[in-house]
């Protein structure tokens, strides 16, 4: 599941194990720094995710979408998928890009 078949050149952004409250600000900063390039997020190591990181990810996804750049989450861990579904946005964990 690590194969990236797209034309993405940027190295995947590896999400932290624990996407809790304290991880929100660094995550936002990291994403903002990565703006302007297609985003590939490696969610394979995520053990938990809270609502504040979800906020950041959703806002980032919207931003990439408005920038017209691809946004991907690859290899989501079951925990990541579960947390996303729990918080009402199961599509966040979908590996395919969502252009909305």
């Amino acid at each position, binding site marked *: 599941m690590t194969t990236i078949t797209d034309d993405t050149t940027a190295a995947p952004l590896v999400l932290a194990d624990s996407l809790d409250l304290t991880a929100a600000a660094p995550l936002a900063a990291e994403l903002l720094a990565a703006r302007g390039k297609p985003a590939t997020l490696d969610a394979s190591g995520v053990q938990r995710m809270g609502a504040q990181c*979800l*906020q950041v990810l*959703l*806002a*980032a996804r*919207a931003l990439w979408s408005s920038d017209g750049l691809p946004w991907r989450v690859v290899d989501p861990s079951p925990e990541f998928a579960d947390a996303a579904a*729990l*918080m009402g946005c199961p599509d966040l964990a979908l590996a395919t890009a969502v252009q909305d």
Partner: protein
Amino acid sequence: MDPLAAIRETFFQECEEQLAELENGLLAMEAGDTDPETINAVFRAVHSIKGGAGAFSLEALVRFAHVFETALDEMRSGRLAPTNEVLKTLLRAADVLADHVRAAHDGSAVDEAHTAELAEELKALDPNGATAGEESEGEEDWGDFEFKPMSVDVPAAPAGPSGWRVSFKPRADLYAKANEAALLLRELGRLGQTTVELDASGLPALTELDPEAAYLAWTVTVTGDADETSIREVFEFVDGDCELEVSPLAAVAAEGEASATPVEDPGETLDIGALLARVQAVAEPPSPQQVPPAAPAPAAVATPADPSSPPDGQGQPRKPEAGATIRVDLERVDRLIDLVGELVINQAMLSQRVMEAGFARASGVAMGLDELEQLTREIQDSVMAIRAQPVKSVFQRMPRLVREVAAMTGKPVRLVTEGEGTEVDKTVIERLADPLTHMIRNAIDHGLESPEKRAAAGKPAEGVVRLTAAHRSGRIVIEVADDGGGINRERVKSIAIEKGLVAPDAALSDEEIDNLIFMPGFSTASEVSDISGRGVGMDVVRRSIQALGGRITISSRPGKGSTFTMSLPLTLAVLDGMVVSVQGQTLVAPITAIVETLLPKAGDVHSLGGSARVIAIRDTYVPLIDVGMALGYRAGPLDATQGVALLIEGEGGARAALLVDAIQGQRQVVIKSLEANYRQVPGVAAATILGDGRVALILDIDTIVAVSRGADSLRAEKRLAATG
């Protein structure tokens, strides 16, 4: 102490307060208090205990508190009426809750069977539980349901689209306090089938986003048999840090997709929310008039909203007002009190030296000293007030005791308490609990007659035990009175003879016989009962009261009941005293006991033979007691005209005059216990240190009066011991 243990300790302290609040509220409701705030306070108490217990994983406590809280929530929302029966169950549940708290605190075991029994009783109170068809007795309620076309289907009705819609929007504070929306959603998921809808409409662009703010909101549909309480419980720790709305699914459905469910009569449609509302209203016994009797079905359809569903936020416990109190380690308070005591003594010594140095009264030094004295006094009063507490904290343990003893003995008892607000030093309060417990047990077990006997005596079946507290003569007087048969003196005497406590031919007054029950080894119960006969008797009670510098007396009237009166010092620290001299000794008489002082005239004093004298004060004669003789300072009586008489009033209201040589003055003295530093001396209550550094004894006026009159239990005891 490690921090967690300290927090845990604080939790248990708070539990005690909450339990007291709970019991008070329930008792107030039992007495007819219908203020919604009282119900809220009761609910909050249980809710807080549960919340804290949850944090410490005290599962048994949480479980029971939950059932309890559910019943209270029903009451709070008006679905359960606070009838006497219901309140009795709730009071017993409060007892069980207290047991659980105590068990959790000291690791002791709880009576599981009793807990389960009470939990069942509580569940049975819940009208929702009844509608769910779990409780067979719930069916009786349906018998009264007059709405014919629906009555058959009612029990099945809640099986329909039961569920809740939970709208939840966290505020930033929720996250700041380390709570997590995801966990709350997960908890909700445990209550039943959930559908989560995320509302991210408030989410700004990433560039604008504050990562620690809260932008998301959720709407969760929970289906299944979860009740509102359990849903709200999920959010109990984030109360106030989120916007929360819980509405029944049926009511939500009624707004738009109203389901028209044909019932028996196919011509009529029925709204499930309205039906539930009607059912709940009918199930509510005391206000049946709220339901239009046998209203036609269309009327029901016309009222789709569930009137009993709480409006927004009502289901949440109101935040208790922030109490303006702090907890202080008792040791610090005691240290402060000690120091203030020293300050008082020091200030008195300083005054004395200034006086001796010959400063004029109007001099700056003397005036400054007066101000210092006033200030010292205020400081002292304020410091004493820190330790003073209302006796309520002891009194409120008694209703439970009464309930239990009443149940064990099969005697219906009503406990009446008065003067709970009477304040007394914390040490006194703490040491009151045991003697009071014992006395109340005794009053019910031995004092009150069986209902049959009461009926035969023309008394109401329900016995009354009265527990009162009041300030009197600078002391606190606590009475435990029952309206039972009074002391059976013949029986008491024969038991005392049988046990060799008195000689068979001893001639005893009624009072002396009554006082026999305070003798060590005396117990009237011929069989040791579970309740009061534990081998310790009233002698233990008396000893513990005496150890507090108090006295206990008994008065009994055959057929009318007995009254035990305890008189205790308000504080064990200071006293306003009149400093007197007797035969060269300086003594202190508590000022609160002194009614007036007078210089006896020769014609007013009469001898009654022996050394007994009386003095005429206006229209009455009162005994004149020579303090010097009573305490053994002199052998012969002082010429009354050479001294000063202090007219005093004892606890029973009896007056006497104490003859002393002279009055030195009046001042506040710091009490130093004689028992603790030396031993108990009859006639002396304590000692103090005067301004000149000398020790002065504080008179125990009641004992002096009683000893001099020869009617004292102390002397009776001596005599009995001599005869026995």
